[in-house]
């Protein structure tokens, strides 16, 4: 299927003026009826000196503007998007319709609980399903994104140690060097000193290094499993046992849960706290960078530290419970990205108990299929079955041809697909991390593999053509150095 990857040709190559450059003084669309009460205005001394220089457009011009911008963007609807660690699966449309129902969208967060039982039921039901999938005893949907969940989960670990009078001496969070950058950043936001431990060649925890690092000053370990090389760490039970043996707790970064949901559970691996990414594993759309959902779950002994408020069932009627004195507190206003939670609930109701492990199995199958089709074994960062994603190292190709992982990524744009994640994890040189997800067809995977192999050949035949790629995209290699040295972050007025 040659046209499986042709999305780029549809992109708008014409420059789109800034919305401000479309502005015509006096242009507007009346949105509000005339004022129906006596006019009144604040004291003049309180007023701003001049109006904000917002654009003046009729509705038709607004429509044209954003349609033009949409044609200069690329979504999962446009084509293959194997961005590793991001789980760019298809976002079902029924979920959008359900989240837009007035019975959810027009409910005020502070209306009496008895008038919002349906919303509370959404939260309670989704929490229950996520507890089952993660193997945890308690769950909160409040964190707005994965990193927010990490921040919250690490805070719970900290609160636990402090409650036990152990907070002062447990000052270190152990994090493998293959971890996402959010892990050390979230630990640091909680005042922890990050102890980085090396990974082995497969991205798995170096158990000897872990043993050497763990001690009475260990607050916990943050781990992603499958790891960021796309491999399941078979020693995980031993690893969590080592940390527990010294009194530390184990945090599970759920970024890669899509590989294992319904197959194995973080709770059964020995993790105490976990965050799940609703916008990855549970098919809610990424929205160009958010909103996400970073549900945080824990074992029973940590449940009283979950953020406020929890949902309580008082014999059939659901209420928010703020009477949790050991809670880490509020991590945001209200109760989380609720409409994202509605979408995730719809997804799980659709998949159900059979669909959840089927999604995981096919995510893993698609990744292995693509990996074997894509590259020669010496380009693998490892050479064994992967989970839902895999990492190639372009080190050898670069040495031989001068063509880098970046060049290949830009070349893939010309082939009509979104490139994989580049230069992550940091422990692999010239890394390209592919995560196809379960919602891609064999035809798309075949076409992507063919495109990639053609690029590798092109790298050998005509490397310069890749140094200057992409050639079919609306723009080519923006000057990032200039952007950072002389930042222009808003329209100059």
């Amino acid at each position: 299927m040659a046209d499986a990857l042709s999305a780029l040709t549809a992109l708008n190559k014409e420059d789109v003026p800034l919305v401000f450059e479309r502005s015509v003084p006096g242009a507007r669309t009346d949105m509000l009826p005339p004022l129906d009460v006596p006019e009144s205005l604040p004291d003049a001394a309180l007023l701003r000196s001049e109006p904000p220089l917002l654009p003046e457009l009729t509705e038709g011009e607004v429509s044209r503007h954003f349609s033009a911008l949409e044609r200069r963007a690329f979504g999962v609807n446009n084509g293959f998007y194997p961005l590793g660690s991001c789980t760019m699966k298809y976002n079902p449309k029924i979920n959008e319709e359900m989240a837009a129902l007035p019975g959810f969208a027009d409910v005020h967060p502070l209306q009496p609980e008895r008038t919002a039982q349906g919303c509370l039921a959404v939260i309670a039901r989704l929490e229950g399903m996520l507890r089952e999938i993660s193997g945890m005893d308690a769950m909160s949907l409040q964190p707005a994104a994965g990193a927010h969940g990490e921040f919250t989960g690490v805070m719970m670990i900290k609160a636990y140690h402090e409650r036990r009078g152990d907070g002062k001496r447990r000052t270190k969070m152990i994090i493998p060097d293959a971890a996402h950058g959010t892990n050390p950043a979230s630990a640091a936001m909680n005042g922890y000193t990050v102890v980085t431990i090396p990974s082995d060649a497969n991205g798995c925890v170096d158990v000897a290094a872990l043993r050497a690092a763990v001690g009475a000053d260990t607050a916990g370990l943050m781990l992603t499993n499958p790891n960021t090389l796309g491999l399941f760490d078979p020693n995980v039970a031993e690893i969590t046992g080592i940390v527990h043996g010294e009194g530390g707790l184990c945090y599970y970064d759920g970024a890669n849960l899509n590989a294992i949901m319904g197959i194995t559970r973080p709770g059964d691996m020995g993790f105490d706290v976990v965050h799940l990414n609703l916008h990855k594993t549970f098919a809610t759309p990424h929205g160009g960078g958010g909103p996400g959902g970073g549900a945080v779950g824990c074992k029973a002994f940590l449940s009283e530290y979950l953020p406020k408020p929890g949902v309580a069932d008082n014999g059939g009627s659901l209420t928010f419970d703020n009477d949790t004195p050991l809670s880490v507190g509020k991590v945001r206003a209200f109760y989380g990205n609720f409409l994202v939670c509605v979408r995730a609930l719809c997804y799980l109701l659709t998949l159900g108990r059979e669909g959840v492990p089927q999604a995981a199995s096919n995510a893993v199958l698609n990744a292995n299929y693509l990996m074997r089709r894509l590259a020669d074994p010496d380009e693998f960062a490892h050479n064994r079955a992967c989970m839902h994603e895999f990492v190639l190292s372009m080190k050898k190709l670069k040495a031989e041809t001068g063509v880098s992982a970046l060049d290949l990524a830009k070349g893939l744009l010309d082939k009509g697909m979104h490139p994989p994640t580049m230069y992550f994890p940091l422990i692999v040189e010239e890394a390209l991390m592919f995560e196809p997800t379960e919602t891609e067809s064999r035809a798309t995977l075949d076409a992507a593999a063919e495109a990639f192999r053609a690029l590798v050949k092109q790298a050998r035949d005509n490397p310069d053509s890749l140094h200057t790629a992409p050639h079919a995209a609306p723009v080519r290699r923006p000057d990032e150095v200039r952007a950072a040295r002389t930042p222009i972050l808003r329209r100059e007025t």
Partner: protein
Amino acid sequence: MSNYIPNPDAVQMDMLRAIGYSEMSELFADIPEALRVGPLDLPVGMSELGVRRAVSAMAASNTVFPTIFRGAGAYRHYIPAIVKTVVSKETFLTAYTPYQAEVSQGVLQAIFEYQSEICMLTGMAASNASAYDGASAAAEAAAMCRDRKRAHTLIAASLNPDTIATVETYSRAADAPVSMLPVQNGTLDIDALRGMIGADVSSVIVQSPNYYGLIEDWAAISEICHAAGAKLIAVCNPIALALYKTPGECGADIAVGEGQPLGMPLGFGGPYLGFMACVKGMTRQLPGRIAGLTVDADGRRCFVLTLQAREQHIRREKASSSICSNEALCALTATAYLAAMGPQGLRQTAEQCYAKAHYAASALAAAGFPIRHDAPFFNEFLTECPVDADKLARRLETEGMLGGLPVDGGILWCVTEMNTRDEIDRLAAACEEVRRHG
């Protein structure tokens, strides 16, 4: 049941065999048997119509109030039809963070436009691409101001309580002290601020209109802050910014707020939009994504994510924050809302909020619910409550009205452009009736 997997079973088997396996379970060989889980205790999967029925029933069990006089951090404003059209566009909905600038110019340009509009509204020099919500934006702003010498945050007690609680949570995580500044007659007690501000104070957080809807004197407060070497974090309402002096005009160092009024539905509290903007000298302390203008290899104007040396994927434990995913689609919503409303439409919205709220305050006072504070207010105000608050709420519900929020023994009312004179008159009549007859 659907699983959205495009490869039928037979194709899955072909694919497995093509790469040298005979069973799916072989792919999971690295997972020890002892860790495998049996069938999960989840319901059987449902068809699309089945999901539609089940979830619609949950939505139907909520009350959707035709008339709302409640705000306190979540505001019902008019959302132009075009806004919903723009944010439903499938590409905007399903794209990831714009890492690959060449195929993400539409997303990046929209962020740049958003940042520009936030700067125009707040009078600030630089904005990030969004934070999780207004409360966490305030918490992140407090973190921006802390350094080795100064880590103490002072918070006006007139802030929204969820914002206070969130700043306290983030600060506790960082082992940074927080103190509350007392309120007098509904606004920050400025003399108390003078007494409490010291060499250890990194920032002072003041919301205006504050939780009670009252206007705070940011200009006077910023002078006190700056004289003491502290920063002023101004928490603002984006609709009010169309009318009132901006944080920039008042000398604030950082402006943050809840962007939900800019085109987002109430949505039972989320997703919302934390906006964050600052003076020029603090740009490199901003957390999260920032889009910038540059040129490409062929000299064309284009946009990229920039100043990434602040961020977690580069700096790891030294990053300004761990934020990665933000509220990009909500920022797009705000951008579309501001384009659709324009400067006159936004000003008209703010003026109507003001005029209707003041009309309502008079009507409620006449009904025996006098306003508690005499400071100027925007579109929220606290009245006394001479009746049982729950009884009043239930009476208003029979009129299809969500009344004000019980706060501090009174009622915190919110009136927006969505409330008609007729609704306000009916509200006042119902309040009077409950007061007279119980």
